[in-house]
């Protein structure tokens, strides 16, 4: 006989042999809180939105930023700031819409897709934020090159010594290294958190996708 048929026979005759929970035991269970990954994804995602908003808010408010007033660079900084707000509003909206779509009564594949979609929105938000940060860093740097008095005097000195190229190269390389380090640390952090949280989901999703090929 087919192995599974044998198992089925046994499986079905065991109907009465499972633990039997009472009405009260089940009632107590429905009062407890879920610890599903969707709940964790929700909490972590909201924390990410808050963290990144706070980071960009703090950067804008720093003393350092006050110096920008002296450069009269509002025409560049204000649109960047507004862009930041539009970005967070857009991604928060998409995040909540995706989150609302997660339903445990969908098929396994659709459920997994909806969870992954929610995650993707947050990832895109962080990526866009990082992109904005890199762009801002270079805009700020170029403003400083042109308008910061200290910087201008350093540049003049460098020009007099014939080391202008060296100066630009070092400044840009240092900026790039700092940004790369920052992004590297973030990616590692992401890899760890989501590697752990979504490992099983990703594995099962790949398994279902594989069936379609």
């Amino acid at each position, binding site marked *: 006989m087919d*192995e599974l048929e044998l*198992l089925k026979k046994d*499986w079905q005759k065991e109907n009465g042999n499972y633990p039997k929970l009472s009405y009260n035991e089940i009632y107590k269970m*429905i009062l407890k809180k879920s*610890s599903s990954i969707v709940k964790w994804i929700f909490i972590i995602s909201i924390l990410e939105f808050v963290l990144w908003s706070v980071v960009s808010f703090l950067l804008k408010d720093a003393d350092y930023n006050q110096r920008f007033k002296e450069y009269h660079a509002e025409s560049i900084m204000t649109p960047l700031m507004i862009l930041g707000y539009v970005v967070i509003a857009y991604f928060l909206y998409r995040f909540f819409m995706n989150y609302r779509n997660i339903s445990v009564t969908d098929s396994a594949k659709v459920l997994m897709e909806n969870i992954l979609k929610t995650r993707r929105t947050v990832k895109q938000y962080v990526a866009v934020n990082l992109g904005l940060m890199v762009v801002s860093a270079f805009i700020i740097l170029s403003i400083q090159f042109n308008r910061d008095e200290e910087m201008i005097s350093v540049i003049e000195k460098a020009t007099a010594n014939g080391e202008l190229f060296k100066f630009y190269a070092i400044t840009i390389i240092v900026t790039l290294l700092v940004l790369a380090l920052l992004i590297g640390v973030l990616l590692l952090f992401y890899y760890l958190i989501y590697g752990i949280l979504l490992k099983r989901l990703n594995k099962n999703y790949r398994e279902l996708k594989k069936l379609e090929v």
Partner: protein
Amino acid sequence: MSKELEHNFVELLEKHQNIIHKVCRLYTNNYDAHNDLFQEITIQLWKAYPKFRGDAKFSTWMYRVGLNTAITLYRKSKRTVSTQDFSDVQFKISAEEYDDTEEQQIKLLYNAVRQLNDIEKALVFLYLEDKNYNEISETLGISEVNARVKMNRVKTKLKTILNP
């Protein structure tokens, strides 16, 4: 949520609780984990219950939520790390026609099924529950043809595990 809803739900669940126990049996291997998964499935069912419409059978609906919780939503909590084995013996009934070789073979089969991955277990579970391929394909979100193909592969895989 209203008391009446609560009451109806708990009563229905009490009646159909075996479905959840069976899911737990395939996806966990110790007593604590069994209880933990049982609880999470119950919570998910309760959360989804207000949207449950009578046009689907309660038990059919339970299969879907139960499997989705086991495959996708459930996060093993720390307290489920236990050395206490949930032996199949606990479920065995002392069959009148006790057949040692068949008994042994069934035990090996259960162990083999435990070695399958989450999706394969879901297929086996629905198959053991006598679900047709249409229902299997809808529960998992794959086509009926692919469900059949996969089921055949699972059977081969089980054979390989049993006769390495």
